[in-house]
Every structure is written in C-alpha cells, then in structure tokens.
C-alpha cells in the first residue's frame, strides 16, 4: 500500500461522498431531534468532516480508532453501517450498541472502534493501552486517537503523550482543533495555542494541517502513519478546523460572532473540495446531485431501519454490567 494520496477523479468523488454522508446523516439527525426521536445531547460534526474522512482514509482494517462524543463522522468513515448507527441514535436494540450508547458512546468491536467517549480526554490513555497491547502481542496496527483542542487542558492528554513517546507506541494522535471547547476560546484556555507544539515537547513528530482540506489531511495522515508504521513511535497531527453549529444542539453562542461562523462556513471542507474540483474540471455537472441522491437514499433506508427497531426491554437493562449477566449467546466480544 502506498502512502501517497492519489488525486484522480474517482478518488476525489469518493472523498466528497464520504464527507457528504456525514453531513447529510447529521442533517437528518437534526430533523429527528426536532421531532424528538433523538433526545439528550447531539454533538454535530458539521464543518469538521474532512478530519475524520482524511485520517480514516489512510487507515488499514487492522488499525484501531478511539474517538470522542463528537464521533458520528469517525463512525461513518470507519465503515460502521449507517443503518445500525441510526438505530443507535434512536436508542434501538438494533443499534451498534443495543441502543445503550446513543450519539456519544458508539462502539464497534469488529471495526476496532473503541468509542465514543463522553469524557473529554478520556480516550487518550485508552488509546495508549490499545497500542501497547498491539505492540506486546506483535500486531502490526496503529491506534488513532481523536480528541478536541479542549482535551489538551486535561492531565490525561499530557500523561498519554509522554507514555506513547516514552515507550515508542504506535499511536497517531489527532487533535481536532476547532478553536473552542464549548464556550471557551482556545486562546483563553491554552498558553500556547499551537497545539502541535505541545506534542513536539514530547519528542514526537507533530504537524499542523489545514483541517478544512480533506486532501491535505489525508496526505498528512499518511506521512504521520508512515512514521508510526515504520516503528518510529507516535506521531501527532493537529487538524485546524471549525464547528459550524452549537456545541451540542443548542447554546447561546455568545462566545463567537455570526460573521466569524459565516467566514468559516465559506471555507468549509465540502465547499472547499467542490470548488477546487470545479476549477480543475474534475467535478462534472450532476456529480454532486448524484452523490446526494445516493446518500439520501441510504439515509432514508437507515431511518426506516431505525424506526422499525425496538427499544430494549427494561428487564434486559440488567444485562452486560458484568460477565455474570452477559447473555449466553455472548454478544460481547
């Protein structure tokens, strides 16, 4: 497998479709939220699609992924079925986590997708352990750990960077720097807003990349992964991006101006790619409409699957707490 990004038309259309799937899936989730089919928290990835798509494009099936509560993008990009994902969002037993995880706690053992984690920074030490386990057991796999800029404030971030570098573990850290942790602007939270530089302090190669450019993200991920796969220890990728919507479904957004959001929207990853493809003649009339049509059909099918699903029998809620109450058919692997 080569570590270069091929930029022919089919590949670019593929990247575009991968991002559209996330964008449109979430737009449907918003509708379902408004009709109260989805409740609670719903952290949208609108604007950040290039990060998960670009990085996950560069992964191999045996690699592991650790994500955050804003992980619909990672889940879809990693190949978790849209149908089981949608069922999960609606809390249905047919969902990828029996409807127990919902939006924030998506897992998939077969895909080595280790969550979905509601605790900021909570995934980092887990990723270190997964990578150490792979290394100890001689598996040639990389663990990719996604987290936000806010996580850089937590102690677990620093513990994990040090551990990974100290033991030269096969980890790719991916910081989704969208400039805010909830209402907190990065510049008010970090003494050095150049997050990649934090990683440099732990002696690992670290690069900041334009997180709105899916091709640039993929290329940077491939460079970083080449280093990690070559046994060089961990690498760090800071993807500079922006969240177009509120932190969860609603917040007052008093921490930023409408103009700021509009300016970023104009630099959004889907626009960015389609503009460039148009300029270079790689996007043909009807391409985008065809993608949208395909994705919308997939979404409709996923919604139908989810709505036809069932809620967990309350008596079953006692299952899966510990081994003793795991049902015999052994759904946990």
């Amino acid at each position, binding site marked *: 497998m080569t570590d270069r990004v091929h930029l022919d038309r089919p590949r670019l259309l593929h990247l575009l479709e991968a991002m559209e799937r996330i964008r449109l899936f979430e737009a449907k989730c918003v509708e379902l939220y408004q009709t109260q089919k989805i*409740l*609670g*928290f719903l952290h949208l990835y609108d604007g950040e699609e290039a990060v998960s798509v670009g990085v996950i494009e560069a992964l191999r099936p045996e690699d592991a992924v650790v994500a955050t509560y804003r992980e619909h993008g990672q889940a879809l990009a990693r190949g978790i079925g849209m149908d089981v994902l949608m069922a999960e969002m*609606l*809390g249905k037993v047919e969902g990828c986590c029996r*409807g*127990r*995880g*919902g939006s*924030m*706690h998506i897992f998939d053992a077969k895909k080595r997708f280790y969550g979905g984690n*509601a*605790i*900021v*920074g909570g995934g980092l030490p887990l990723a270190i352990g997964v990578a150490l386990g792979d290394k100890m057991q001689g598996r040639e796999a990389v663990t990719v750990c996604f987290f936000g800029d*806010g*996580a850089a*404030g*937590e*102690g*677990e971030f620093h513990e994990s960077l040090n551990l990974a570098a100290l033991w030269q573990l096969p980890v790719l850290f991916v910081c989704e720097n969208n400039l805010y*942790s*909830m*209402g*907190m602007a990065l510049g*008010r*939270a*970090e003494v050095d807003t150049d997050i990649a530089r934090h990683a440099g302090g732990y002696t690992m190669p670290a690069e900041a990349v334009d997180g709105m450019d899916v091709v640039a993200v993929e290329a940077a991920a491939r460079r970083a992964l080449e280093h990690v796969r070559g046994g060089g220890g961990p690498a760090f990728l800071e993807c500079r991006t922006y969240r177009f919507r509120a932190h969860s479904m609603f*917040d*007052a957004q*008093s*921490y930023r101006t409408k103009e700021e959001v509009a300016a970023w929207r104009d630099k959004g990853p889907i626009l960015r790619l389609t503009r460039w493809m148009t300029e270079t003649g790689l996007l043909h009339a009807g391409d985008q409409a065809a993608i949208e049509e395909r994705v919308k059909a997939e979404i409709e099918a996923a919604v139908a699957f989810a709505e036809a699903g069932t*809620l*967990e029998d*309350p008596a079953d*809620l*006692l299952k899966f*707490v510990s081994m003793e109450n795991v049902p015999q058919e052994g759904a946990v692997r």
Partner: protein
Amino acid sequence: MAEKTMIEALNLTLHQEMEADDAVLVLGEDVGVDGGIFRLTEGLIETFGESRVIDTPLAESGIVGMSIGLAVYGLKPVAEMQFSGFSYLAFHQLESHAARMRWRSQGRHTVPMVVRMPYGAGVRALEHHSESREVYFAHTPGLKMVIPSGPRNARALLLAAIRDPDPVIFFEPKALYRSHREEVPDEAETLPLGEARIVREGGDITLIAYGAMLKRTLEAAERLAEDGAEAEVIDLLTLSPLDDATITSSVFKTGRAVVVHEAPRSFGPGGEIVARLVENVFYHLEAPIRRVTGFDIHVPYFAREQAYLPDVERIFEAARETLDARA
C-alpha cells in the same frame, strides 16, 4: 419575595454572597463569559470581574486542587463541575487533599470550599450526564455532602455551604433546575447543614428521600393517604453528616420506613440509612425497611431513563408492602 427557579435561586446566592464577602470566588469551565453550562452563573462575571469569576480550561483536577489551595489561605472558592460525572477526574484532589487538610494539620489548615455539581437524571443524556454517585463523597470522612430539593432550600443551603468552614460537595438535582418556581425571599437566608426536614407529617410510615426523588415520594405519600395511610416524609437535605435524630425519632414513632434514592442500590445511601435505623430503632420496627432505588447499572440512554428511576408507583408499592407486613 419573588418566584424563582432553582437556577435563579442559586444564582441569587452567588450574587449576594460575592457581594457580601470579598473572599468568595467562582471558578470552573465556562462559568464566566458563557454564564455556565446551565446558565447558573450568568451575570457574575459582569458584576464581579474576571478575577473573581474564573473561566478555567478543561482541567477538573486542576480546578478542585486549585480551589483547595485558595481555600487554605483564606479564600472561599465555589468551584463548578459541569456534571457530577466529570468530578471523577477531580476525585483524587477531593479525597486525598480537601477531605484531609484539617486532619493532617490538626485544624490549622481548613478548606472552606464548595464544589457544586449537577447530578441525577433529567437531561435525557446517559451515564455521566445523569448519574447519582453521592456515596463516593458521603463515604469520605472530611467531606460534607448536601443535596437540596427545591429553589428555596437550595438557595439557603448553598449559602450555608459557602459559609461552612469545611469542604462541602453540593449536588444540584438538575431535573429540578427549571422544573418549577418557588417563593424565595430577597434577603439572604441559610439552613443549617446536617439537618433533615420533615416535609409531611404522618404516623403510619416514614418515607425518606432527597433531591429530585422528594417530589415523587411526596406524590406517593398522597396516594397512600387516599389509600388510608398517613406517611411522614423526610427530606434529608444533607447526606453527610446524616441527621440521625430526625430519622430515628420519626421511625421510632411510625415503626415502618422506606428509603428512596436514584443512586444505584448496592452500597447506596439507603444501605447506610437502613443500618442506622436497625441500630437505633430495631425493637420499634413493625416491618422490614424497604429501599426504592436505581438499579445496579449505568444510567441508560434516553429511551430507558425513566425505567431506571424510582417512580411513584414503585415507591407506593414498597410503602404498601411495608404497611401490610405483619411482624
């Protein structure tokens, strides 16, 4: 007097006590510019400035540890955890330092700090955003554990907690943040920590609850009344130190008791309360004491949140069984 939600009532306490006492300060994630994740600290930064209303990075251990440092030198920090489920990152600081400072220094250092956190179900989000782990703190010697049940007592208890010379964990039932309004006097008032309240008198059975479960317990009491049994309902308000006297004298009188909480059952607050009743009023009990609690599971996703929580029916049934039991 004005009708206030719990959010407004707690906000009033912070405003008034920061006005009254320069040593009081507020810190946490998004408590300043953004006015707090539940908008509870709204307006504070405008009034008291950035030096007393401190927006911190995401660093729970740092927030609590720093508060301890501020407190040992005479300040009165009121720290916020956005959800009680995030306080686990700060648990070390609470357990290893806040709780022990007075002990280790033989009283020379004290930690007059409050850590506020919303707890319990109520926002239809799972696990950390809905759980009820008050025992972690109530189990720790040196920490006080307070849980109000309405706007007025929340306001009075928070003030008492801020003025208390020891670290207080203040759990706010988020389900009640905006659920209803209550008359809250304009002038500051406090309620003593460590005192439970009898909120309904009755001679047939004692129902013990706190926080968001109080309302359901009172509703169950009304149903019992329709059924011919008068329940006495106790609102604990402080879990630690527990008000033995109030509980004991009530059950001494009624001979029957049910404890209600949304925390998981095993090793939950109910276990401790029942143990104390057994120690103190065993010979006056007419029936086994029952517990109506959350299950020994993690709080489920929205569709099954209510299945997890004790409801009026379960409380009523448990009380009925207790009343019907023959010793």
